[in-house]
């Protein structure tokens, strides 16, 4: 069951009631991120940070390793100077940490958000990118009528069934 709303507070109230009555999984659509919706949905914390940490650690290790290994493999011998030395190699460690860490963050975002997506799947309406809010409620067939009534009672401008 899909409900389209034009007001933020109506959407929040509808989410709260649907959750209270355990009407099934909810997908909430919004033209812009809103804390009110996040509080109402009460989702788990984003796991992007794990990708960031793993990427950054891998990057810093690779950055130092490539510089140290490359210097030892093709030594440029200068009298009195070490073949490989830590201080200048901080540049490689840092830059590669940022590069791999940031790219793995983006990968994590894509993976967790389920994109790229080839089709819009059920329950998408172009109005959600303009100004409307939406709630897609995946409920059991016997709950359809109740879900529809909750969505309408809270001011949905359109309610429709989706398969």
């Amino acid at each position, binding site marked *: 069951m899909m409900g389209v709303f034009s*007001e*933020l*507070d109506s959407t929040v109230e509808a989410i709260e009631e649907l959750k209270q009555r355990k009407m099934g999984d909810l*997908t*909430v*659509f*919004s*033209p*812009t*991120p*809103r*804390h*009110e919706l*996040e509080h109402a*949905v009460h*989702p788990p914390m*984003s796991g*992007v*940070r794990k990708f*960031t940490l793993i990427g*950054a650690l891998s990057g810093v290790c690779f*950055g130092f390793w490539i510089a140290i290994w*490359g*210097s030892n*493999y*093709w030594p*440029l011998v200068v009298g009195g*100077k070490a073949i*490989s*030395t830590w201080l*200048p*190699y901080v*540049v*490689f460690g*840092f*830059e*590669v940490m*940022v*590069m791999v*860490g*940031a790219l793995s*963050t*983006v990968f*994590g*975002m894509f993976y*967790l*958000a*389920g*994109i*790229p*997506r*080839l*089709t*819009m799947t059920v329950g998408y309406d*172009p109005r*959600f*990118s*303009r*100004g409307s809010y939406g709630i897609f409620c995946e409920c059991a067939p016997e709950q359809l009528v109740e879900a529809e009534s909750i969505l309408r009672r809270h*001011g949905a401008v359109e309610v429709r069934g989706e398969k």
Partner: protein
Amino acid sequence: MATLAHPDDLRRPNIASADIQLPAVTSYEQVDNEILAVLKPTKAWFASLMLAIACLGLGAFSWIYQIHQGLGVAGYNPPVMWGVYIITFVFWVGIGHAGTLISAILYLFRAGFRTTIYRAAEAMTVFAVMTAGLFPIIHIGRPWKFFWLIPYPNWRLIWPNFKSPLVWDVFAITTYLTISTTFLFVGLIPDIAVLRDRETNPIRRKILGFLSFGWRNTEREWRHFARAYLFLAAFSTPLVLSVHSVVSFDFAMGIVPGWHTTIFPPYFVAGAIFSGFAMVWTIIIPMRRWFGLRHYVTLNHLDASAKMVLFTSLVVGLAYMIEFFIAWYGGVKYEQDYFWNRVFGQWWWAAWIMLTCNMILPLSLFSQKLRRNPTWLWILSIFINIGMWFERFVIVVPSLSHDVEPWQWSSYMPTWVDYGLLIGSFGWFFMWFLLFVKQLPVMALAEIKEIIPPKMKHTHSHGGH
């Protein structure tokens, strides 16, 4: 359309509280309609694009001529073997700094004035770094050998010298280009979805659908997006500071008078932010006028950014003064002679262009009246752009032409090939920027919508934003 709703705001812009609002923007539909209206091509846009392409053509011709004739056609005159190409490289890397500063650092500091200008600044960053990246390749004379700088096991299994600042530069610039492009593109995804949903042409709709990765505006997408954006900003913040520090090492690691100094990294970073903001003004001020976006980039936004420019100008000015002071106080006669030659000798004209444009003229920004005068800010931005190019000229050329061995002191005069490539770099940069503003939203639709009060059924529900 009114720029400011409350008369009190007129003289009280406030950066610290991030409380810069858009009172003349009232609905999400208005944001979409007004910002996406910029995408319609106009005659002035075509004329500007043609001019940019003509400049690029001059640059391309100069480069082809140089490749054919050899590097001798550039103005190099031993020992001045770094010239316009390296100056222009550092200039464009500096321009590229403001974008990431505005989008990342000011995001972390919650500075509200960034919201409407950061997209243009981010695009400017990507195109400026793309421009900068060309110049080391042009400078080496044999551009087909540039890949020797990249650390990979080539056919002779030779690896680059990892202790060379030039190799640090390759890593720093490559990382910066990758991350700034990623940051720009990730921020664009929700806005491309808006374009996709409004598009009626099926082919364009398909392309936009592909570029938006099937973004659906779900709470789940926004949650991971917001977290990823925060981490990207956190990565980009030290990256901004590191990149120009690494560029400054190209000079500071050399034992040349005027170069071998520890203040170069902060001095370069402040200068980069200063010049980058100036270029943001050069672009944004005409844009807000021509595209009717004055109620998005208000006088409060300009005022806040002017304070940033004033601050960085003071830092840069202090760095100039410290250089002179240390040359005198250090008691090294080569340094003293070099700095005297820089300001009162052979290169006085370049040094005084630098000092006037970067230190003296920006002092006008202590006046609030001038900070809120877009015409003056635009004129000042041109002076700052010129001044910052000359700052790099003053760093590069006088040091090399007047180093520790008097027998090899010489001069330097750029040729038409140098100037052609300099003009070509502006053509290349503006061509990309002009193409960008007509293809993708020049302001971040989703973020602007965030600062507009959403439609509510009840007036005091859920505490608002």
